[in-house]
């Protein structure tokens, strides 16, 4: 059995960030990273771009082998973890090998959810969670003329756009009234959907899937609850993700939807941390824990976990999960941070919305008393990172709130220029 001081399972953003954070403080302690992937680490976020042919395969990797060698980190590829024993401090790989650790980080990510649609077992469908999925999808796409995408999140939208770029006729199935409901309100989502429609992507909203059935030539038919039939050569499921936690059965580590962690990313078991898409962590705006499967969140959590694992004196606890993402589509750009979907003001919530549909521009600022709590924007000149930081720091805008509303770009920059230390 091999032994390592730090063992990191999973090699995407959370795992990598944790490793780099540990190395800043401990330049010698043995670090082993294991990944079920056969390749160097890559980001699931790159896959829709890879599908569209925007990035060649050799360019999708985040780090090369020389990088791990230089940092003296052992990278075990093709090594899926099948079990963990928190008492003996070991993990078991599919190969049967065991690794003994002193400190363990679980960053195993999330897999695609496959909802139990009636008839799903009779058709061929695709997902995009890892490189193999993406390679399979590219192959299928090459012989296809049309595609159906089920889902309303960013992966669904990104994939739909990239399938359209590849020349396919794309239809989307969105069960809710609008897409991207986690990030945008109805007005903003409507604007985005219009841009998709203008670019030839059909979006069927407000109706779930009634059944899925095979059609001739390997095609499939998706019948909606509304009665509408959609036919496509490719069926892509992008209906959400599910933390990969099956291997933890019997390990004694507490799980819910994901691995339950506290604000230090510690799990219920001693010397075991979890971060990224697999973790279910405290929230920023309200009590309770949630899985936040976004890239920036994975990096934040990976950094917190790494700092705690190495007892970094600069450690600061995780400030909590909240929505945040950027979205670039058909030459337009959008982002959303915090409580950006609140549509109506309440007693202490103020909503300031600017909508210029002609210019395809939208901007929404949400305040709780004198603090910014949410921003969403489409084609607006704003700095997403500054908005995010003002929300995270709960900066009291007080006297300059009006100025901020009238000139959020300049005022935000000025504030961060002054607050930056």
């Amino acid at each position, binding site marked *: 059995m091999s032994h390592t001081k730090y063992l990191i399972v999973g090699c995407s*953003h959370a795992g*990598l*960030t944790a490793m*780099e*954070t540990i190395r*800043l403080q401990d330049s010698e302690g043995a670090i082993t990273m294991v990944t079920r992937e056969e390749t160097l680490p890559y*980001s*699931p*976020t*790159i896959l829709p*771009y890879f599908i569209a042919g*925007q*990035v060649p395969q050799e*360019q*999708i*990797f*985040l*780090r090369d082998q020389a990088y791990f060698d230089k940092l003296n980190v052992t990278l075990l590829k093709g090594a899926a973890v099948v079990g963990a024993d928190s008492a003996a401090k070991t993990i078991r790989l599919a190969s049967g090998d065991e690794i003994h650790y002193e400190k363990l980080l679980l960053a195993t990510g999330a897999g695609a959810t496959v909802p139990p649609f009636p008839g799903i077992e009779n058709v061929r469908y695709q997902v995009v969670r890892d490189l193999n999925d993406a390679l399979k999808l590219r192959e299928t796409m090459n012989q296809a003329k049309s595609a159906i995408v089920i889902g309303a999140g960013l992966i669904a939208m990104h994939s739909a756009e990239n399938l359209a770029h590849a020349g396919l006729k794309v239809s989307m199935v969105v069960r809710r009234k609008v897409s991207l409901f986690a990030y945008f309100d109805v007005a903003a989502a409507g604007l985005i959907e219009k841009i998709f429609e203008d670019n030839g992507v059909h979006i069927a909203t407000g109706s779930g899937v009634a059944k899925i059935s095979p059609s001739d030539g390997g095609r499939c038919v998706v019948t909606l609850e509304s009665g509408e039939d959609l036919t496509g050569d490719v069926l892509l499921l992008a209906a959400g993700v599910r933390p990969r936690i099956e291997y933890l059965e019997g390990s004694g580590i507490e799980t819910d939807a994901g691995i339950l962690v506290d604000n230090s990313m510690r799990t219920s078991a001693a010397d075991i941390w979890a971060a990224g898409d697999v973790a279910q962590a405290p929230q920023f705006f309200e009590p309770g824990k949630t899985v936040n499967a976004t*890239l*920036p969140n994975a*990096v934040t959590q990976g*950094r917190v976990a790494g700092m705690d694992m190495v007892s970094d004196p600069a450690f600061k606890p995780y400030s909590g999960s909240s929505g*945040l*993402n*950027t979205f*670039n589509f058909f*030459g337009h*750009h959008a*982002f959303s*941070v915090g409580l950006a979907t609140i549509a109506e003001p309440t007693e202490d919530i103020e909503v300031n919305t600017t909508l210029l549909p002609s210019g395809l521009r939208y901007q929404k600022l949400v305040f709780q008393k004198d603090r910014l709590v949410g921003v969403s924007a489409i*084609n607006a*000149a704003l*700095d*997403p*990172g*500054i908005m*995010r*930081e003002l929300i995270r720091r709960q900066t009291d805008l007080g006297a*300059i709130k009006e*100025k901020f509303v009238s000139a959020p770009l*300049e005022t*935000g*920059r*000025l*504030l*961060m*220029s*002054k607050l*930056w230390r």
Partner: protein
Amino acid sequence: MDKSYHTIAFYPQKCNGCNDCIEACARINTGEVSPAHSRIAIVKDSEDGSFGLALCRQCGEPRCVMDCPAGALSKNEDTGVIQWEETKCVNCQLCTLACSYAGITYNPVTRKVMKCDMCGGDPACAKVCGRGALEYLTSSDLYDKWGDMEDLFVPGISACLGCNSELLIRHTLRRIGPETVVATPPGCVAGVGSVGVNGFTATKTPVFHPLLTNTASMLAGARRYYNRIGRDITMLAFGGDGGTADVGFQSLSGAAERGEQMIYICIDNEGYMNTGVQRSSTTPYGAWTSTTPVGSVLRGKTQDAKPMPVLMMMHNCAYVATASTAFMEDYYAKLDKAVAAAKHGMAYIHVFSPCPTGWRFPPAMLIEIARKGVETNTVPLWEYINDGNEFHFTHSVDNPLPVQEFLSLIGKYRHLDADQIDHIQKMNKRRIEMLKMFSEQEERRAS
């Protein structure tokens, strides 16, 4: 040891919002002057008229790099610059969400992100800024060059919090190295433990404690001994202003006149700080000390400070310079010349040395005060090289800040009235005019 990097510093108080930097940035990157293409942005606070900066900080733990799904951003280990590779970028803009300072932004014209690349080591924004609001700082080179050298001054000495002398001694000994004999006459430097506490010295070189009166003559003798036995050992004095300009002056003057081989560093904190803040001959006009009190009659010192470095220049020393710890690159360059000059004669460096304890200011303000002293022309930085009779300023004395910007930071000047401030401003001007005569003479000779 990790590497330290060059950086672009912003001094908001010097900015007037002319936007030259923005145009220069856009032009060098795209050939156009549209601010849309600028990687640097200056924003004005309409309330108080101050300015803020949005520019890449080239972070040590860059969040944009960590958040990039495409590996398009990386930190260059040699230059410290966060590099953006256009061919790898998928335009997801997650980096713009990662940066808290608008250091990487979306350009709606090119429809791509953009960020500062420091123009490959010659930033156009800093070059074009005529007011010094943006400055390209290369002082990290000192750290890279000398940071690994042994600190020859032990930790745990008993200097006051924020002591300029301690900082200065650590830097100086690093540069000059262990083949040195150090003399520290009575004063703060000796008092903090450099010459011994309970039988141990704080310097890792030979050190001795001359009388207040004879530092230069004792070093002269020691050097002559080493010359006789054929060893090239540097003689180094860290004297206070009292041990240098007051009671120690006759031995220093004599050694300078004889051209004794040594580096004499005067750490001028403008008074007797370790014995209760008494005035010395270098205490400036108007300053409060315990012997130039502020009351109903007296308003601080009534005489001007002795122009010690000029006096030493008049002794035909091999090398004379003034220095400030806010300008360390300048100091290191001068130390190099002093080391060379002390092979054949006396090198004298007069270091402006603000003292938090005796001058009444918070320790954290030390370097800022050391900087403002220079920028208001209270302490002009210059050097004189005897071999060739060269005199030149090493920091521009044109367009100084008003002297109040220096005086107002310091408790010992708090009581000054308008006439006194006016006097100080006039004396600063006169000092520059006098020094410029040496400088002009040099120019005339050169032309």
